[in-house]
């Protein structure tokens, strides 16, 4: 079982490397880091004397969250569009026929694919995010309060989305699975922003939109937790306390343990559904 899972996970990573996905992501990340590094350094140079230290930390927090959102979006797109071809594409093209006729359980094969994708997606956001934090430190001398938690939550967000993409790719075509996964990711993010505006305005009905969407697909909830780890604690007060919730690149509260538990359960359930669907499938 372990042998099969590790072999398939390794194969998935090798596919990402050989198909130049790794190279494309690396180039994209370097460009983003270079551009943001230049932006941060200009920001430091031009606002040197005019901003208070609190304002500077607020702006650095917002910009860092904004750039991190860019990375999480790249990771989401990358893994969602990688999960489709690697799973649904292989069953469609016939590559899976010879592999699954080997003495292996389909659930082990699926777990291997998932593990490979998680390693790839989570590895990407953690490395790119870490590089970005270092760039921010060097340019504007800002270090986030809990970078480890924040990066872990970014990785968790990627894991959630690609688990969904894996489930989708066991039931629909490779292209459709990528489109639906990314579509749902963006919808949840927008619903989270709408909910935040509702909360800031004191409208419970609108606020519930965000809360419900965060339960249905935990990507936005985890993203908000990650932002909370990247931003300066005093930044929110500067921005107007709880009213900051209306702003999409600040997070008012850290994640609760219950919500993290739900995210883990969600991943387990969706993976289980994907396994049931894949095991029962006629190839």
């Amino acid at each position, binding site marked *: 079982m372990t*042998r099969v899972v590790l072999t398939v996970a390794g194969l998935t990573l090798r*596919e990402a490397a050989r198909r130049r996905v790794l190279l494309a992501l690396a180039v994209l990340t370097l460009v983003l880091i270079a551009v943001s590094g230049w932006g941060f350094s200009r920001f430091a140079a031009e606002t040197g004397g005019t901003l208070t230290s609190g304002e500077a930390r607020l702006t650095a927090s917002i910009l860092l969250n904004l750039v991190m959102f860019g990375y999480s979006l790249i990771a989401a797109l990358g893994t969602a569009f990688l999960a489709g071809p690697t799973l649904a594409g292989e069953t469609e*093209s*016939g590559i899976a*026929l*010879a*592999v699954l*006729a*080997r*003495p292996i359980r389909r659930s082990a094969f699926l777990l291997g694919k998932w593990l490979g994708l998680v390693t790839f997606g989570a590895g990407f956001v953690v490395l790119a995010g870490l590089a970005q934090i270092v760039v921010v430190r060097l340019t504007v001398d800002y270090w986030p309060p809990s970078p480890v938690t924040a990066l872990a939550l970014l990785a968790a967000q990627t894991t959630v989305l690609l688990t969904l993409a894996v489930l989708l790719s066991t039931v629909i075509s490779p292209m459709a699975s990528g489109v639906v996964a990314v579509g749902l990711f963006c919808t949840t993010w927008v619903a989270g922003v709408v909910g935040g505006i509702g909360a800031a305005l004191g409208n419970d009905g609108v606020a519930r939109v965000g809360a419900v969407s965060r339960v249905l697909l935990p990507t936005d909830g985890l993203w908000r937790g990650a932002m909370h780890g990247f931003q300066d604690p005093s930044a929110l007060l500067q921005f107007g306390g709880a009213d900051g919730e209306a702003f999409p690149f600040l997070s008012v509260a850290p994640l609760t343990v219950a919500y993290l538990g739900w995210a883990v359960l969600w991943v387990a359930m969706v993976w289980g559904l994907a396994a049931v669907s894949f095991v029962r499938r006629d190839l």
Partner: protein
Amino acid sequence: MWCTGLRKRYGKRTAVDGVSLEVGRGEVVGLLGPNGAGKTTVIKMLLGLVRPDAGEVMLLGRPAAEPAARARVGYLPELFRYQPWLSAAEVLELHVRLSGMDVTADERRDVLALVGLADRAGDRVGGFSKGMQQRLGLAVALVARPEFVVLDEPTSALDPLGRVDVRDIVLSLRSRGIAVLLNSHLIGEVERVCDRVVILDRGRVAASGSLLELLGQHEVRMHLTGVPPAGEARLAGAGQVHREGEWFTVALPVDDEATVPDLVADLAALGVRVHAVEPGRISLEERLLGILRDGSEERS
């Protein structure tokens, strides 16, 4: 390998309906039938790739539902595709690792050489022609020391030389005691290498048996002149006669060593001049067409 009562429906269409067959050690069994007869579905059910609605499959002494039953099974699918981003040698390495067998690098190289890909081992599969991919597929099926090999249309993309190679490989598998299930449209191929044949039609077994059983009916073609009525009666007594000018074709219901010599001696004694005697056998192709035609007449 044996299976019994295999049944599979896709929506309202019954693809396979009560198929039973078996392949013994060192036996080569051919699976024949028209398009859509259910041959590939049967093969996929044997390998656990398609879930049967009913029926039972035993592979190498274990129920096929257990993945371990496939440890010593090699498979070349009809739709053969291999990871285009891997090299031929890496594809074999992957399959060896998944099979859990301990196959040395030398053995893997030998298998690639056997299918004619020795000098392409390090090349990416993505650059292979269809024929080369099918050769690689054959190597994948053979690499993990199989005891049962399933070849689904193994020569569909191969040139005539490749087909001869496949025939030689199948014969060498048989000589090593390895069981082979061969699905092929090429009747000549099946006739040359198979011990037994199973003919599927519309999801059912239309006929099965050894080549001798299926093709048991022999015939003899004779060029005769000066045939008196008594000679014609002697010919008719031997079997059903079909006459084209001076050529007489007699279908022989029994085929023992004496039938043809006795017939020729009797004809000569009756004053018939015998110019030529050609033994003939009904080809598998004729037999297959006959079975399929009978099946469709029965249905209508």
